[in-house]
């Protein structure tokens, strides 16, 4: 499944994750696993909207896991180690007023996922790949 992520406002942010959540539920994936996938993908989706002007998501479902790949062509992440720290955020004030910028998104993704890969290049963009296993 491929989703495009509109980066122009916060109204539509989350629609891709919502679609993926429905699809996983329909396929009979267990609710706690769907919840982990939904939270991780939603955080990644929001990051493209807040930090990178939107992007796209690819969700591939296998018999025992799901791979979620969220890609943007934004500014990239200069220091991934720093970005992974709880509380670290460069979110602009406008984003904070919308309820973002706790600096908890990437740590949340890490916590919910079985594997997390962040590929990023300054000035070119970021791809976040999340693997969620179906076994609890």
């Amino acid at each position, binding site marked *: 499944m491929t989703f495009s992520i509109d980066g122009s406002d916060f109204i539509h942010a989350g629609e891709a994750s919502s679609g993926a959540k429905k699809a996983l539920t329909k396929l009979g994936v267990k*609710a706690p696993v769907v919840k982990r996938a939904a939270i991780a993908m*939603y955080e990644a989706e929001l990051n493209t909207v807040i930090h990178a002007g939107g992007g796209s998501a690819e969700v591939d479902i296998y018999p025992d896991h799901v791979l979620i790949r969220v890609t943007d062509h934004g500014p990239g992440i200069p220091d991934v180690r720093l970005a992974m720290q709880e509380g670290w955020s460069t979110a602009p004030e406008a984003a904070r007023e919308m309820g*973002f910028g706790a600096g*908890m998104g990437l*740590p949340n993704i890490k916590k919910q996922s079985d594997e997390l890969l962040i590929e990023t290049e300054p000035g070119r963009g970021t791809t976040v790949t999340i693997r969620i296993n179906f076994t609890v």
Partner: protein
Amino acid sequence: MILKDCIKVLEAQVAVSVPDLEMDIQVACGADLMSDVMAFACASNEMLLTGLVNPQAIRTAEMMDVKVVVFVRGKQPGEAVLELARQMGICVLTTPLPMFTACGVLYSHGVLGKGG
């Protein structure tokens, strides 16, 4: 505490109703930053209290399987928020109580936070 009683002690208005007003609310969380809410994800998060009135509060509830969103301090959600909640089958309440008081009232009636 069942939802109907939560509504009473919160002095809340029901902005979006759900069929099951008897559902048991065991765990709640209160925060204004959505990633703080998601950091709190556990097996059962039934209620989210927040001062953040925008569609992302409902989206966050949707991802976390939260069934009830309470907007505190008398904040009134707009139509976009209500419409999304209706689509998702999420109950929306508004309470005049500020965040601390709203959480305190629920806690004193036996609703717990994550980890008791």
